[in-house]
């Protein structure tokens, strides 16, 4: 694939105004699927099911099967709509979106078209640099997910060139809410950061409502980023592209930035943008052309005759409104105060998209400082090196347990980092790894004293200096002891004991 020409980002911003629009799919974690009693693989209880085991005649679109709406999915969708500041439709309808594709069992998707359940909302998003945006929400609608295709043979893993493809219908019928923004103007150079920060807010909302696992790497949260450019001063919107397969917060920012630079280069060269979907490639940091897409794509939508309109009672809506958790922006202000973080420390957490992880780690028993240190420090560093989201590396419960072991003196920071590697490698909980690898700090003084005595005996000159009151000379002995203990000793305790033994002898 020829690498597209890119214009320098600042230069692109000089010539063009970027306009972005975001479509976020949230997989609901209901126990059963959107339209059938099959277990929902987006619920953590059913994550690891073997292919084609979470299915009923409805998921397979068998002749004669009929959909039935999952009431819990309706409640979750209303809660999400309310949290997005949307109005909830008195009556909304499902529609059929007709197209042929082998992962779509019925060859139509049940979605909502002209009557979504929620519409006209607004979400506050604060960027790293302190800018605050009100992102306008056009609609949030319910739909079912398709199955999953795995293409076998061929070099790219895509359908083109594959010898054959396998279909897993476990995901067919997983409940989704698709949240669509209106075009977002005025972000300018912040457009890439805004896109990422917006999705992060959606994740916060979904998690605080408890309606989704909201893990991007699992596909619980998926973002399609629409980007278009218009020349400075122009009225008319430019032609947009829709970048799919962007499955980390970092990628969203990079993909939007890339599209701005790519489109700017084409437009500045007198070319025109093709309206199409584009695929994001994590490895190369580029997008490539997918299917041409036009507003005239004909899905032959019509009202789904197998389902009745969704008419939630005003009482239900008010009940769900009363149960809403505090809005993300307010929650952030409260947490910052409770944790006693500085602006910089708190923003560091937010910008790394680790607010939820830190909150849950604190809830699991860690001090705010320790939670912040582990997530924005070691975990963020490893995530960065591996090009993944830190949240995918370890669970808040494990991080809290790790911090607790350090706090209790069982682990030093250095040992704790080794334990963390074990956690990331999936070896078990921190305590299990400490036990299995034998990594605990040696807190048995007699073992330490034996090592200290040996070290002092082999370095008589140092012993002399300590006895002369040159306490800093003890460092050499401490180092030797730590080495002898293979790092499994608390250096402060070793120091105490060294001074004690030196003066005692």
């Amino acid at each position: 694939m020829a690498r597209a020409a890119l214009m320098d980002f600042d230069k692109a911003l000089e010539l063009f105004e970027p306009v972005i629009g975001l479509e976020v799919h949230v997989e609901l974690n209901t126990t059963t699927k959107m339209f059938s009693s099959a277990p929902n693989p987006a619920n953590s209880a059913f994550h690891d099911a073997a292919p084609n085991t979470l299915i009923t005649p409805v998921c397979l679109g068998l002749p004669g099967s009929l959909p039935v709406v999952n009431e819990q999915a309706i409640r979750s969708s209303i809660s999400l709509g309310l949290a997005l500041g949307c109005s909830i439709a008195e009556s909304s309808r499902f529609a059929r979106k007709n197209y042929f594709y082998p992962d779509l069992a019925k060859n139509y998707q049940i979605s909502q078209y002209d009557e979504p359940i929620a519409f006209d909302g607004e979400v506050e998003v604060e960027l790293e640099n302190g800018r605050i945006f009100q992102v306008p929400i056009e609609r949030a609608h319910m739909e079912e997910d398709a199955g999953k295709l795995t293409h076998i043979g061929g070099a790219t893993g895509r359908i083109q060139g594959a010898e054959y493809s396998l279909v897993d219908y476990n995901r067919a019928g997983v409940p989704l809410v698709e949240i669509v923004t209106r075009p977002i103007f005025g972000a300018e150079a912040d457009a890439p950061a805004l896109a990422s920060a917006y999705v992060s807010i959606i994740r916060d909302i979904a998690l605080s409502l408890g309606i989704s696992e909201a893990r991007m790497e699992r596909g619980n949260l998926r973002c399609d980023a629409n980007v278009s450019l218009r020349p400075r001063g122009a009225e008319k919107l430019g032609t947009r592209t829709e970048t799919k397969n962007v499955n980390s917060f970092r990628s969203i920012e990079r993909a939007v930035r890339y599209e701005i630079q790519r489109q700017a280069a084409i437009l500045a060269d007198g070319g025109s943008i093709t309206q199409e979907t584009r695929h994001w490639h994590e490895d190369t940091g580029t997008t490539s052309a997918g299917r041409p897409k036009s507003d005239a794509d004909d899905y032959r939508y019509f009202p789904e005759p197998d389902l009745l309109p969704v008419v939630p009672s005003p009482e239900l809506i008010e009940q769900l409104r009363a149960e809403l958790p505090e809005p993300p922006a307010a929650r952030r202000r409260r947490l910052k105060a409770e944790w006693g973080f500085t602006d910089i420390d708190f923003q560091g957490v937010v910008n790394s998209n680790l607010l939820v992880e830190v909150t849950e780690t604190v809830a699991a028993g860690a001090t705010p400082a320790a939670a912040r240190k582990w997530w924005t420090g070691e975990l963020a560093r490893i995530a960065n090196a591996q090009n993944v989201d830190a949240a995918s590396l370890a669970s808040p419960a494990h991080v809290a347990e790790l911090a607790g072991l350090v706090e209790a003196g069982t682990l030093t920071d250095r040992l704790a980092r080794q334990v963390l590697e074990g956690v990331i490698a999936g070896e078990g909980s921190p305590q299990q790894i400490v036990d299995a690898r034998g990594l605990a700090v040696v807190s048995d003084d007699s073992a330490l004293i034996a090592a200290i005595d040996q070290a002092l005996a082999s370095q008589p000159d140092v012993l002399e200096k300590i006895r002369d009151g040159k306490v800093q000379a003890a460092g050499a002995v401490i180092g030797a002891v730590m080495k002898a203990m293979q790092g499994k000793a608390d250096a402060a305790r070793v120091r105490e004991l060294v001074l004690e033994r030196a003066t005692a002898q």
Partner: protein
Amino acid sequence: MSEIIRLTAAELGAKIAAGDVSSVEATRAHLDRIAAVDGAVHAFLHVDAEGALAAAADVDRRRAAGEAFGPLAGVPIAVKDVLVTEGMPSTAGSRILEGWIPPYDATPVRLVREAGMIPLGKTNMDEFAMGSSTEHSAYGPTHNPWDLDRIPGGSGGGSAASVAAFEAPLALGSDTGGSIRQPAHVTGTVGVKPTYGAVSRYGSIALASSLDQIGPVTRTVLDAALLQDVIAGHDPHDSTSIAEPWPSMADAVRRADVAGVRIGVVKQLDSDGVQAGVRSRFHEALALLERNGAEIVEIDAPSFEYAIAAYYLILPAEASSNLAKFDSVRFGLRVTPEGGGTVEQVMAATREAGFGPEVKRRIILGTYALSAGYYDAYYGSAQKVRTLVQRDFDAAFAKVDVLATPTAPTTAFKLGEKLDDPLSMYLNDVATIPANLAGVPGISLPAGLAPEDGLPVGIQFLAPARQDARLYNVGGALERLLEAEWGAPLLSRAPDLSSHEMAAAEEGAL
């Protein structure tokens, strides 16, 4: 001919309950009749003799052990092939489902099994219930037991013919625009399309979801009522099924009395377009009802004349989407182009080979009607007409208790006669379609034979939604009055098909 097969379902059920006949004997008698005459009639696509006898033996055993059953327990039943049956082929008359064995039972099938009834097999139908003659079945047409050269109606010609030919005491059918009532009309049997939502559609291979309804196909009004009592009721698997409980339809038949009942005659459906003999039997039946205390009122339903046009947009639109799932990926026929092909090419080749011409015609029509730019003009306008038809019904039912029409414009036509003229075929359903558009219930029962051709004629009654009991009241009363005049049921005048036994055996049918 064995006496057992001449019994109505109610009579047979009573004899089985009394211990005069076992379910196994009843089942075997009907299987013997099928073996004897179905080579000529071709009502069945699949006969499950082994399964039926095993089910009958099970019911006999449980009854002997003291288990209590309803009035139809032990009675055999034929099932239209549009309903999926666990362990039995279910093709909907299409090549594209040849050999597919469903892993589950349709709700109405489950309910008849739970009532102790014995499914004998699957009956022939126009492919995916598209047609009025069964000539669009991929497996060859069914023949009318009154005249084997004529159509048995459609799409449920197989169910109606099986009942008319005494191969089964009763059957399940489906009615999207008349597929239960028009076959009843041309075979001298009883057919009921219940209120939309009365019977679950779960497991009924969908033609047009907003129009389809499952219902009884029988020889008497009481049998239809007993079967509707078994299959009606809310089903959590079908969101469009009605939640409220139903009164007993059998009770309505037993108490049938038309004194004081106001019957509306739809002006637009009582016209010169109706065959003379069909019209005269219709008016004789009305006169008979009037003599017995009913009040006959003329009703204007101006939108009914647009019903057929609206129907032939809504039906294909929904069907084009419902039939998209037949793509070879998960079940049914798979045709791979020579030298292999992409999934799109395999889907296209399968649908090209697996669907018949009428199905393709309607898929194309429906796809077009739903296309961007045409949606409002076609599908949108059709939905408006649908609302107008519903308003005509509302206005009519403000004045009368039920409406009456001839069920179809003509008696059974000859096989092949209208096969090349789809429009003329579509017009067969002019009187039955409005009920599907409005979701109201309808019944067709025998009104006699047309003098000019000696073929059966039906009369249709329509009632407001959820007032199915009114149909059973009026239908039950008329049936009693007519049979008193005739001295015997109409079907006793049908030809004895046993002369075809030899021919069938020679052809090696079944």
